[in-house]
């Protein structure tokens, strides 16, 4: 009781000043729906917190300077080598600060995990349609966070000024220079003169420890606040509707679970830092402009950019005394630019095509939005081809194939593979929908064979249970396109087309609508699987037309369309 009194005292003191009792109570009771994919964003959040913690430790010892020193420290292999202070202080963190190497490695692993978790989280959001109204703003914030994460990572792993990351900076300089008109100036201003100069490390340090993390922190805060304000989406299920949210309350359940999850994330990263070496800069040596090692790879999230630079053909124009280095600025800017722009516009494109202006709080199952899922898989495939091409020298070496062949394959695959992926995915989705419809119509096979008095054998099926039924029947709801006055819902050809549906754009929209909403129709009879015995296992007629209860009368298999009264 004394603890209660103490807590009560603190609570009263705070409430007298901040008026929290009611709002905080509501917050404590906030409902968190549960699904394993909802943890992906949490991994990103916790990686970010771990990055802030370990990064703060590293700043205590790191010297962001390109001033030259001759090394005489603990790593004797580099004794007497002249190097930048940045590199020397990174060696000191690794070999002379207790726990320094661990913090460096955790920091680097956490950065990779941060980016991987963001990617997985975005993929989940996309495939379940969780970006739809009212969550478009958070989707855009997420894309911005991903972009900032890329820059933050690039600047971060370039800070030690080692040979590997120095080559990355050299590539960055080359990419900047290739930009028409302003490129050379941008490169000179960023590097403070010709490459490598002596300014780039301190400048990247400021960006890496202050500006970009500040922006990320602000956007993460906004991201979370909007999420709390709008409440979570939920996976489809019994009792889960667009007007409720079902799950466990934040206090004590979610707090304890998410706390545990933070510890898991930190624990796994600590073990990774202990047992999995990452970025051993002492093996690469300090940066110099003359040397380079084979098999150089950036961190995985830069791999796609690297692959695009490798796969793009050697196209270049020299016109009126100016060089258009298409071979550089197109692959450097186009794939990622198109990916981010396309992702940012997608929710609005989908809204325009489907005419959908409703709020959506129940997630789609990916199969139930076949076109969206297929587009997503196609984009991931494109990304994957370029990403693999970013490691084509490693692949060629491991699989003992010609280095040039890997590039030739990628030059074809980056176009062909996404198309195949699109078609396959769409077919698979529609097939899965058919399976769902079959389950709804005919129930679950029990494996029990029964002989009827007529001598006929039938397999007994059991209706799907309520929970599965709710899931199977969950489909995205499309409002339908605006219809002209007088036109019925099924006869858009007649009557005057609605505004926005006229002309070539309107026609295209109609066609896109049909592509995007393509689905296997659910049985119209919502209670179609209520029969214990479903005799007609494979009627070709869509049972969408079967009236309720007719299944019991039309028991004869294949002797006519089912549901004939």
């Amino acid at each position, binding site marked *: 009781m004394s603890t209660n009194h103490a807590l009560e005292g603190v609570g009263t003191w705070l409430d007298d000043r901040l008026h929290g009792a*009611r*709002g905080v109570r*509501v917050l404590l*009771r*906030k*409902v968190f729906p549960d699904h394993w994919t909802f943890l992906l964003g949490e991994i990103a959040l916790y990686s970010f917190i771990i990055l802030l913690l370990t990064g703060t430790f590293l700043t205590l010892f790191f010297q962001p300077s390109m001033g*030259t020193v001759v090394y005489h420290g603990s790593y004797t292999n580099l004794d007497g080598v*002249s190097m930048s202070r940045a590199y020397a202080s990174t060696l000191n963190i690794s*070999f*002379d600060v207790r726990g320094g190497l661990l913090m460096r*490695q*955790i920091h680097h692993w956490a950065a990779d995990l941060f980016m991987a978790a963001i990617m997985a989280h975005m993929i989940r959001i996309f495939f379940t349609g969780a970006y739809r109204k009212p969550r478009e703003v958070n989707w855009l914030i997420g894309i911005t966070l991903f972009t900032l994460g890329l820059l933050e990572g690039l600047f971060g792993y370039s800070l030690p000024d080692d040979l590997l990351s120095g080559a990355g900076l*050299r*590539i960055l300089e*080359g990419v900047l*220079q*290739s930009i028409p*008109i302003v*490129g*050379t*100036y941008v*490169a000179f*201003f960023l590097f*403070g003169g*010709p*490459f490598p100069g002596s*300014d780039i490390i301190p400048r990247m340090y400021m960006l890496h420890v202050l500006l970009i993390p500040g922006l990320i922190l602000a956007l993460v805060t906004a991201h979370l606040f909007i999420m709390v*304000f709008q*409440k979570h989406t939920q996976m489809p299920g019994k*009792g889960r509707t667009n007007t*409720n949210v*079902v799950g*466990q309350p934040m206090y004590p359940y979610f707090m*304890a679970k998410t*706390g545990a999850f933070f*510890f*898991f994330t*930190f*624990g*796994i990263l*600590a*073990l990774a830092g*202990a047992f999995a070496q990452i970025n051993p800069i002492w093996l690469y040596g300090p940066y110099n*402009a*003359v040397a*380079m090692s*084979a098999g*150089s790879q950036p961190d995985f999230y830069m791999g796609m950019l690297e692959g695009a*630079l490798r796969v793009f053909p*050697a196209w270049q124009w*020299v016109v009126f005394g*100016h*060089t258009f*280095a298409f*071979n*550089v600025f197109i692959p450097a800017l186009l794939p990622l630019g198109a990916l981010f722009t396309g992702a940012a516009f997608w929710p609005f494109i989908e809204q325009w095509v489907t005419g959908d202006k409703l*709020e959506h*709080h129940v997630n789609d199952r990916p199969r139930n939005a076949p076109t969206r899922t297929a587009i997503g898989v196609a984009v991931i495939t494109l990304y994957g081809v370029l990403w693999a091409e970013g490691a084509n*020298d490693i692949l060629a070496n491991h699989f003992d194939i010609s280095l040039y062949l890997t*590039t030739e394959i990628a030059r074809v695959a980056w176009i062909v593979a996404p198309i195949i992926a699109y078609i396959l995915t769409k077919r698979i989705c529609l097939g899965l929908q058919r399976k769902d419809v079959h389950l709804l119509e005919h129930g679950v096979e029990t494996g029990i064979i029964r002989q009827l008095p007529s001598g006929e054998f039938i397999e007994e099926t059991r209706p799907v249970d309520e929970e599965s039924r709710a899931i199977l029947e969950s489909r995205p709801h499309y409002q339908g396109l605006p219809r002209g006055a007088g036109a019925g819902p099924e006869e858009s050809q007649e009557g005057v087309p609605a505004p926005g549906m006229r002309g070539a754009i309107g026609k295209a929209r109609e066609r896109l609508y049909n592509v995007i909403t393509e689905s296997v129709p659910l049985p119209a009879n919502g209670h179609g699987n209520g029969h214990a015995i479903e005799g007609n296992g494979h009627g070709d007629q869509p049972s969408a037309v079967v009236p309720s209860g007719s299944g019991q009368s039309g028991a004869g298999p294949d002797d006519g369309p089912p549901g004939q009264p």
Partner: protein
Amino acid sequence: MSDTNDHGHPGDHGQPGESARGDDLMADLAAAGQPGEHEGQPDGPQARRRVIGTPAPAAGRTMLAEEPAAGGAPRELPADPENLESAKRAERIVAACFVLAMLAGLGFIAAYVIFQVHTVNNTLHSNLALGTTMGVAFLAMGVGATIWVRRLMPDVEVSEERHPLASTPENKAAFAQTFEEGAQTSQFVKRPLIRRTLIAATVPVAVAPIVLLRDMGPLPEKSLDHTVWKKGTRLVVYGTNRPLTPADFSTPGSSLSVIPEGYAENDNALAKAATTLIKFRPGQLRAPTVMNWTVNDIVAYSKICTHLGCPAALYEQTTHHILCPCHQSTFDAARGAQVLFGPATRPLPQLPLTTNAQGFLVAQSDYHEPVGPSFWERS
């Protein structure tokens, strides 16, 4: 809410009229200053609260005295898990996990004190000890907390209502009115002179910070067109800074990185001037290699890749291919370093070579074209 479990928890007994709470932060914020709104909602007894998967309590359970919630308000969450036996076991496991975490945490501190660093091996041991204890401490806490939630906290599922995010028409209208009135009162709308001069005033202020960035670096001017190689600059071996005579470099097929003498510590100079020296057998070098720029079948090409400036560091003797490890641009060293494959568009520039009076290899001049990646001003 057909699955609302009404034979549920001890706390539920005798509370038929419990009112559902509008557990809704947004509504709460919106309704601030309208006390009682939530409590007054006339929802049914079962609304928005479900307790799923909790079978009827064991006979003995109902005998346990329940501490009445403060103020007599009905419980919203059950107080105890269904299976107290299992909970007791779980409690011990959780406690064991937390003890393990505590020991691992102490181990971390001990490892910090015991394991010193300053050599590669010591660092390895320190890293393993610190990382393992840290990882175990966190994982044990995570495992403990997870078991705690799953086995000790009664399983509940609650439901709360969503409200449309859009404001009510009245609120929207009120906002519009407030906004409109403010705009009118400020005179911003009525007095275009103020409005326009204010906009005019902000433009230079907005541009000024961009102007401030001007001193981040010098202008490129012609600096990318030249390197530090000059007529008579001696080639020295990268790393040893030793000058070379053709006789020092007489093994056909070998290659060397060379730099201009006196620039070994100048990264800015080397970033453009780094050069690859390759010795061929007589007759192997073909056009478009400039033969006048070679000495005894020794040819010098820029080491800076014309794609993105990485050192094109890999040389394959048998095929005479120079390969850039960054993006695999491949150049034919026997034929003027022409591009054979990859994204590079231009051959590696050739450095004109000769020997000086002492017989050392020197440059005849600078490269005759800019080295390295393409840039806008390059013609």
